[in-house]
């Protein structure tokens, strides 16, 4: 059973074709070409599958960075 952080990181790595080392404070919406509106929807779908949740509209829109996402997922009882 992998930890929540591992699952979370894996979704980012898979959705944006990036390495673990790219997962940091600087990873924000549109900071890399892969994280555009299409990548965003794919990443959200990936998180929903991985954590078996359905995210609200406001949270999908507020999800502006790698770090902010962790904060938002706490609403769905996912802690890191």
């Amino acid at each position: 059973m992998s930890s929540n952080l591992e699952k979370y990181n894996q979704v980012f790595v898979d959705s944006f074709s990036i390495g673990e080392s790219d997962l940091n404070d600087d990873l924000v919406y549109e900071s890399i070409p892969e994280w555009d509106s299409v990548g965003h929807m794919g990443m959200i779908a990936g998180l929903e599958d991985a954590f078996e949740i359905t995210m609200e509209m406001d949270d999908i829109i507020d999800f502006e960075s790698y770090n902010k996402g962790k904060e938002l997922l706490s609403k769905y009882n996912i802690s890191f």
Partner: protein
Amino acid sequence: MSSLFDHLESFNDHIAFHQFQNEDVSYSELLKISNKISACLLSRETIALECSNSKEAIACYVACIRSKIVPILLEDNVEQAKLCSYAKLYSTRYIFCQKESTPSGYKKILEIGQFSLYEKSSLSLQNDIHDDLALLITTSGSTGSPKLVKLSYENLLSNTQSIIKYLAIDSNDLPITSLPMNYTFGLSILNTHLYAGSSIVLTNASVLEKSFWNAFERFKPTSLSGVPYTFQMLERLNFFSQEISCITKITQAGGKLSEDLALSIGQKCLEKNIDFYIMYGQSEATARMSYLPPNFLLSKPDSVGIAIPDGMFWLEDDDGNKVIDVNATGNLVYSGSNVSMGYAKSWRDLSSGDQNMKILYTGDLARIDDEGFIYIAGRQKRFIKIFGNRVNLDDIENFLSKNQLISAAAGSDDHLQIHIEDNGIDFEIADIKKLVSRFLKVHPSSIKLNIVSKLPRNKSGKIQYKELN
């Protein structure tokens, strides 16, 4: 003939633009900026115009139409190299852009907000531009093809008036700009609402961004527009379950909406009393050619509707004979005053007049039912649409061949499939995907790659696309 924006003075102090982070702009303020720009420009010259949904870029566009300067509409944040290559090809005396660095050979003559107007006074096209030519627009979003569609003043006026008629647009409409203005659908939203004296909510943000919804909540737009992908996002965001009572009209174009999505959105719009219009068009027809009246949405969700006012459709077989049997498939042909003058590949093509005689061979295959509704059945031409933008499949093959890869590009809208011949060159699939995605500026997830030992070809060596998959 009067031009599109000759009457804007009459809207006076009415608000033209609402912006979340800036003050409202009235029509008279818009004209003040526009006149300031016009004063620096000579008519019948070309200008490369970087289009953002901002008062400055729109004021420059309005100045061009009113003072008869021919703009080439280029995307927001266009790379300097691409901007300059269009400037060179089309010998543009002027460039209006947000760039920090002055394009080589040009001199800055005006600064407005984030934008600068540059001039290269040694260039002049005055005797080489046809009187009817109003603007130049790209055919395929982002690949930087030099080929542009030539639109006339009559094209713009005619399509604007037709759209206003069937969408019943007036000065009480309040759209939000969810599309860029260098994209023909985005431009038509701008043209129609400025012409009608409406107020427009300006934003460059997509529906996935907070700033879009901040503007939405504050200004409560009455209409919203999008390409099929916009509606996939809106569905996923559960948009139709939110508080959206301000919205009375939604328009969709830029590719075929799946029947499931059309029905699902159609049903929700019906419950909420929103008129939902599915529309069809091309840059070559200025913007719109057909629309599906909302009351037919649930009974004909796979139709693109009927011709716009003053337009008409018919079908032809490959020999050019009219197809008259109901529901038979043929090549879709359109006629109307919005059919473009033709294409240009450089400034040398700007002196010729209308080459199409108001008739457009759409390149789409279609059938027409007993009530005259059009159903698109496929394409004759080798292109697909990805997120609303046309992508020429041959361009992709040419691009890959420059990178020593032999390929066959195929697929359907939003799903590009590239078959690559295994020629022993060591290439990672992910790298090829990245290469193509950067070239087309589309997300890698919409590209599928397939390595084959040999591509199916006929005796003369032509790729047999039907045998792929």
